[in-house]
């Protein structure tokens, strides 16, 4: 692929739209990166697909609505028309809007280099603050989302500095299912609460198999607050973020509990 003939920054990430005095190759012209395609088992989003492409895709709208919603919250229309999923992921901000949805949908990420391709769970891609598993000479090729695994409860909420064009202070994504009055499946992910976009396995473990009484919900919130590391920064405070994280988790779990009521025989 032509994409390999390029210079990198010191951390090995390719540039896109930057204004530095290096030799650069625009990825915008690489057609293979842009399409969104569906097979029976996977929805594949090219790294060059824009957030507008994601919003306009009928399969995503129907089967992966949290991702469509996150795309609609990314910047505003003009930003969505140019910003790409691959660029957003590799930029690796812990505040990015799409990663929580990708994490709860159990996305896989495909990386390509002159040596070939490799694929890993997206949850293993973020290694630390602004550090990813992308090697020098590697490019993100696509993000793959499994089809046919939809859960009855889907939740995504972002709290920002305003209602549009906002970097998130806290965002929480959750999917799950109840059975016989208890939590059968639950996956929770957050933005702006850790140094990377993050799944919250301890919180999930505290919920599995449990009935969602108010006491159990409060206990899960306590586990959440142990698991996340919110900070003070230019946008918000650690104490506010912690409170909102707990409140959003509570809101998600209330929806889970309600869905459990509906399915009870």
């Amino acid at each position: 692929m032509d994409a390999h003939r390029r210079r990198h920054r010191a951390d090995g990430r390719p540039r896109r739209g930057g204004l530095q005095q290096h030799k650069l190759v625009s990825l915008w012209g690489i057609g293979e990166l842009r399409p969104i395609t569906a097979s029976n088992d996977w929805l594949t989003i090219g790294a060059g697909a824009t957030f507008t492409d994601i919003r306009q895709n009928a399969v995503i709208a129907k089967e992966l609505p949290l991702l469509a919603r996150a795309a609609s919250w990314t910047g505003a229309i003009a930003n969505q028309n140019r910003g790409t999923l691959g660029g957003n992921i590799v930029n690796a901000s812990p505040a990015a809007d799409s990663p929580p949805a990708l994490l709860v949908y159990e996305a896989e990420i495909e990386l390509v280099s002159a040596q070939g391709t490799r694929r890993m769970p997206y949850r293993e891609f973020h290694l630390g603050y602004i550090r990813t598993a992308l090697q020098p000479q590697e490019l993100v090729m696509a993000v793959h989302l499994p089809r046919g695994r939809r859960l009855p409860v889907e939740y995504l909420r972002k709290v920002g500095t305003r209602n549009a064009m906002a970097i998130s202070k806290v965002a929480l994504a959750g999917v799950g299912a109840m059975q016989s009055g208890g939590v059968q499946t639950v996956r929770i992910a957050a933005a702006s609460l850790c140094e990377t976009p993050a799944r919250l396995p301890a919180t999930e473990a505290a919920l599995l198999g449990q009935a969602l009484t108010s006491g159990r919900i409060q206990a899960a919130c306590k586990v959440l607050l142990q698991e996340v590391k919110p900070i003070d920064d230019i946008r918000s405070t650690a104490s506010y973020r912690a409170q909102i994280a707990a409140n959003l988790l509570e809101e998600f779990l209330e929806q889970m509990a309600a869905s459990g009521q509906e399915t009870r025989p």
Partner: protein
Amino acid sequence: MSAAEIQFPEIQFKVNGAERSVSVPPMKRLLDVLREDLELTGTKEGCGEGECGSCSVLLDGVLVNSCLVPVLQANDSEVLTVEGLAHNGALANIQQKILELGGAQCGICTPGMMLAAEFLLRKNPQPDLDAIREGLAGNLCRCTGYMRIIDAVKHSIQTPLSAVVHPPEDTVRKGA
């Protein structure tokens, strides 16, 4: 290579229907090429970081912030700026409504607002109020409180702009 010997690549594109050609550093912002090299100063810089929308243009019919587009990515493309909205001296509907309803005070956000409105109405000819607000959410205004801009978009819904094909003759110039 000395500074005098540097040859910048030629970028060729259509701007407001006219073929233009500029020889500039490929990473020069489209915003700066429009304003400086093509002397189309209707497109404004408000922030330079894709946040305020003052620099909005249509690139191949798609609304973009021209402060974030390196001009090389506009090669072989069609660009519509605010100067291209009027046709043969007749204001486009959105321009007419902004004028009538007082949608412009200082005017800095106005070109971007009109391009955003044009893009919205091309995709969604009958937007409701929420869709109008969302369509303009990337364009910041400090003077108007948005009321009259939103009204102007609402009132231009019935008769949307048709695309400019032939530019007025006196704007056709070649870049250096």
